[in-house]
C-alpha cells in the first residue's frame, strides 16, 4: 500500500472561488478545500452522521436572533451537510449542536500564495 503524502498542494489561493468547495482526491481520501476571504480551509468530504459527501453542502454562517431580528452572524464559517443539514464549524470541524460530532479538518498553510494542505500534522 502506497503511503499518502504528508501534504498536498491545491494551487493558488486566489484561484479558489470564494465559498465554493474544491474537492481533491488524495489516494482515496477526498478533501474539500475552500477559500473564505484570505484563508483556506480543508475538511474530509465525509459527514460523521451518515457518511454524506459533505463538501457538496452549502457554506453559511451562524444564524442568530438579535433585537427581534434573525441575523447572519459574522465570524466563523459553517459547513452544512447536503443530506440532513447538520452544521459544522468549518475551522474546528465541530458540530454546532454537539461537539462530540466532528468533521475531520486539515491544517492549511500558504506557500508563495499557494494552498498547502497538511494531511498529517506535525
Amino acid at each position: 500500500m502506497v503511503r499518502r503524502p504528508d501534504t498536498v498542494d491545491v494551487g493558488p489561493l486566489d484561484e479558489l472561488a470564494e465559498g465554493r468547495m474544491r474537492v481533491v482526491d488524495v489516494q482515496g481520501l477526498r478533501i474539500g478545500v475552500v477559500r473564505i476571504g484570505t484563508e483556506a480551509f480543508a475538511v474530509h468530504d465525509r459527514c460523521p452522521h451518515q457518511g454524506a459527501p459533505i463538501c457538496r453542502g452549502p457554506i453559511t454562517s451562524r444564524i442568530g436572533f438579535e433585537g427581534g431580528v434573525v441575523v447572519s452572524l459574522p465570524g466563523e464559517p459553517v459547513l452544512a451537510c447536503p443530506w440532513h443539514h447538520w452544521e459544522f464549524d468549518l475551522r474546528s470541524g465541530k458540530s454546532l449542536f454537539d461537539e462530540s460530532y466532528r468533521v475531520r479538518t486539515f491544517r492549511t498553510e500558504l506557500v508563495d500564495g499557494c494552498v498547502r494542505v497538511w494531511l498529517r500534522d506535525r
Partner: protein
Amino acid sequence: MPFSTPQIWPNPLGDGYRPEAHPVSGGAPCSDYDLLREQLLEPNSISRVVLAFESGGYLSTLPNPYLATEVARAANDWSIDTWLSRDDDRLHGALVVATQQPLEAAKEIRRVGGHPKICEVILVGTGLGKPFGHPVYEPIHEAAAEMGLPIAIHAFGEVSPGANVAPQAGGMPSYYFEIQSQSHQTLASHLVSLIAHGVFERYPSLKLLLVEAGVSWVPGLLWKMDDQYKSVRVEVPWMKRWPSEVFLEHVRLTTQPLETSAGSEKLVAVLDAYGAADVLCFSSDYPHWDTDERDHVARTLPRSWHERVFHDNAAKLYGWA
C-alpha cells in the same frame, strides 16, 4: 406528468432533495432509472423497492374531486408504463387514489390493483376531512381488502395548501421545524380512527402501513388506546380485541426518519416496548434530503432485528414471502 403543489412550509436549507439525486440531464429527482440504480438499488443491495409517488400524492388535497380522480388514474397508468413495466424485477409500486371520491377510488383500486407490480394503495391526505377509519372511506377499505393490497398512509398529506384539515392539532404551525417534528400527528389520528371504527374487525386480512412519520411515538398511543378500551368500550362495541393487539397484527411502520438523537440504546428500548422488531419495514425516503442510509439503520437497530426489518416484515406485508 408534472404535478405538484406550492409549499407553505418550505425546507429552509434546500429544495428538499439530495443534491446528487437531480439527474444531470435535467428532470425531477428520482426520474432517472439509471440514477436510481446507481444511488439506491445497487449500493443498498435492494431486492425489491416500492415506488410511492412523491408530491403527486397530494392529489387527494385538490379541491376539484373530478380532476383529482382523473389525475390519480393518469398517475397510476404513468407509473405502470414508466416504471413498473421495466425489465427490472426489483421495481414495485403503490397505486394512488383520490380520497375525495371513495367510490371512484375503489374503482381505481380494482382497475389497477391486480397488476403484478402494484403492491399497496397509498393515501396522502384526507380528501373529505375525516380520518381514514371513518365509514365514508369504507369503499377504499373494502376494495383494498378485496384486492389483497395493504393500505399505506403517508405522512405530510395535510401540509398541502389544498388540504381541508390542519397538518397538526392545536393550530396552524409556523415553521418547517414544527411540521417535521409533528409529522406523526396525522398518522396517529388515522391509526386511532381505523382501530376505533373497527375496520380491521370487518376486514381481517387488511393491513396498514404508516409511512414516514418516525417510529418512537407508537407505544404511548397504544397504551392510551388500551386504557380507553377498558373504560369506554361501550361506545365502540365492534371492537373485540385490545387495540395494541390489533396494531401488532395489522399495522406496520416504515423506519425513516429513525429518531436517533437519544442514542440507539434508548430508542431500541422504546421500540421493544411495542414489539417493533416485527413491525418495522426499512425505508429510505430517497431521494429526499433526509434519506436514511441502510447502514445507518443497521447500526442503530439490533442485529437480531435485521432480517425482519430489512426483509421479512415487508415480504409478509406485501405477500412476497
